[in-house]
């Protein structure tokens, strides 16, 4: 509901600097990756690195098929639901604390207080976060990450970016993700081995929750990569606007002018297509 606030100069300057660093590093990387002589796919303004991104997506798909999906399916079939829920709650509790911080950074005091109370409740009365009594008490989870915080303060998405393993992102969200990882559950441990173990369990947990969704994707997408990209961008936009982005023109005014009735006007003469 809240309109995007005007950028705070200091914050946006910092964010732009961060984004530019990331952009520079990536552009350098991309230039070497794009094979010489291949005609670029028709440039999409939100996805100028589509050729590169599609290669990363193909890599992710192969990795998923060979490793992540089978492990996630085994995890779902072997580990009892009670344990899986406990694991998910535990990770969720850590991220809830981070959400509370992000809500504070966005100036949403009330939301932050609810999330803070939620974490305190689940930590104290939910066996350190394994159980989720807070949801029963109507302390509802509203997740927020650092990418959303950047977006809240007006930092633009920048080009779309498909990350290895982590999947769809943008320059802004990849920057946010890097910050998020610094406070991820794996960082709770001081030993390198434990960090890898916790990180791996987290990946399996996330992938298991996505089993049904990604199976559906196979059945409904004409182009999986484009579907994932567009869906990601739409959902992030929605999240940054707290579920109330301005509505876009549906663009359905291609009303009947039956082709037989009049000599069909050339496409260029028709009403301009609203940009997405």
């Amino acid at each position, binding site marked *: 509901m809240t309109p995007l606030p005007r950028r705070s100069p200091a914050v946006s300057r910092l964010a732009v600097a961060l984004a530019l660093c990331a952009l520079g590093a990536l552009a350098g990387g991309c230039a070497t990756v794009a094979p010489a002589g291949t005609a670029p796919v*028709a440039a*999409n303004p939100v996805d100028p690195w589509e050729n590169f991104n599609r290669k990363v997506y193909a890599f992710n798909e192969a990795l998923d098929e060979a490793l992540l999906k089978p492990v996630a399916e085994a995890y779902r079939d072997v580990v009892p639901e009670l344990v899986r829920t406990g694991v*998910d709650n535990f990770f*969720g509790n850590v991220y809830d604390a981070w959400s509370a911080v992000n809500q504070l950074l966005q100036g949403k005091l009330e939301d932050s207080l609810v999330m803070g109370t939620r974490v305190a409740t689940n930590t104290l009365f939910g066996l350190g976060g394994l159980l*989720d009594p807070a*949801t029963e008490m109507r302390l*509802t*989870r*509203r*997740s927020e990450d650092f990418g959303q915080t950047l977006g809240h303060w007006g930092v633009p998405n920048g080009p779309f970016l498909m990350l290895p393993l982590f999947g769809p992102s943008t320059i802004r969200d990849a920057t946010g993700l890097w910050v998020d990882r610094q406070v991820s559950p794996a960082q709770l441990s001081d030993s390198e081995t434990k960090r890898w173990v916790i990180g791996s369990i987290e990946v399996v947990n996330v992938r298991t929750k996505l089993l*049904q*969704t990604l199976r*559906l994707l*196979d*059945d*409904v*997408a*004409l*182009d999986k990569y*484009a*579907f994932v990209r*567009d*869906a990601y961008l*739409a*959902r*992030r*936009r*929605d*999240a940054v606007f707290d*579920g*109330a982005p301005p*509505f*876009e*023109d*549906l*663009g*359905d005014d*291609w009303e009947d*002018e*039956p*082709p037989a009735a009049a000599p*069909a*006007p050339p*496409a260029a003469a*028709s*009403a301009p*297509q609203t940009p*997405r």
Partner: protein
Amino acid sequence: MLKKLLPTFSLLLALVAGGPAWATGTPDALVRQISTDVLNTAKADKAIQAGDINRIVAMVEEKVMPHVNFEVVTRSAVGPQWRGATPEQRSKLQAEFKTLLVRVYSGALTELKDHTVEITKTLPVAGSSQVVVQSEVRGGSEPIKLDYRLDKPADAWKIIDVNVGGLWLVQNYRSQFATELNKGGIDGLINALVERNKTAAAKG
């Protein structure tokens, strides 16, 4: 006297018969009615609870589809090339896209079982006769947004897009449609849809 009573009588009859009360109703009343209907059906049906996709598809066809304006839905996803499509191509596009969207929506519903729907607000879409009815599905670890975009071209509100978790299902097909249209025109798009529906149906 009789003339005056007649409308009252027919209104009563419509109410008693459980007739189309939404025909003159508000868009949020229509969404509430559909949501309640879908949830109650899901609660009473073991197969749906078990995630039987064919049963869910059947339920969506019966409960939701009569309230969707599929011509607007398809036209908005296809874009300007809709103008050049023949009536046969149009009906073919509509039929195939409908099959696809029912699968998307049903798939989204399988993740929402055992939940309650709370309608939060109804917002007008600036510069049009459309409205968006927002609702939230509660009961999972985090509430999921489930919004409906509606328009009232004639006497009844009709759904023209659905938003699940921040994603407008119809709008999300635009760029994929554009790619197919650029490659093979209207017939190319029809073939791509037919192909996708065929492989999905074969998987069951």
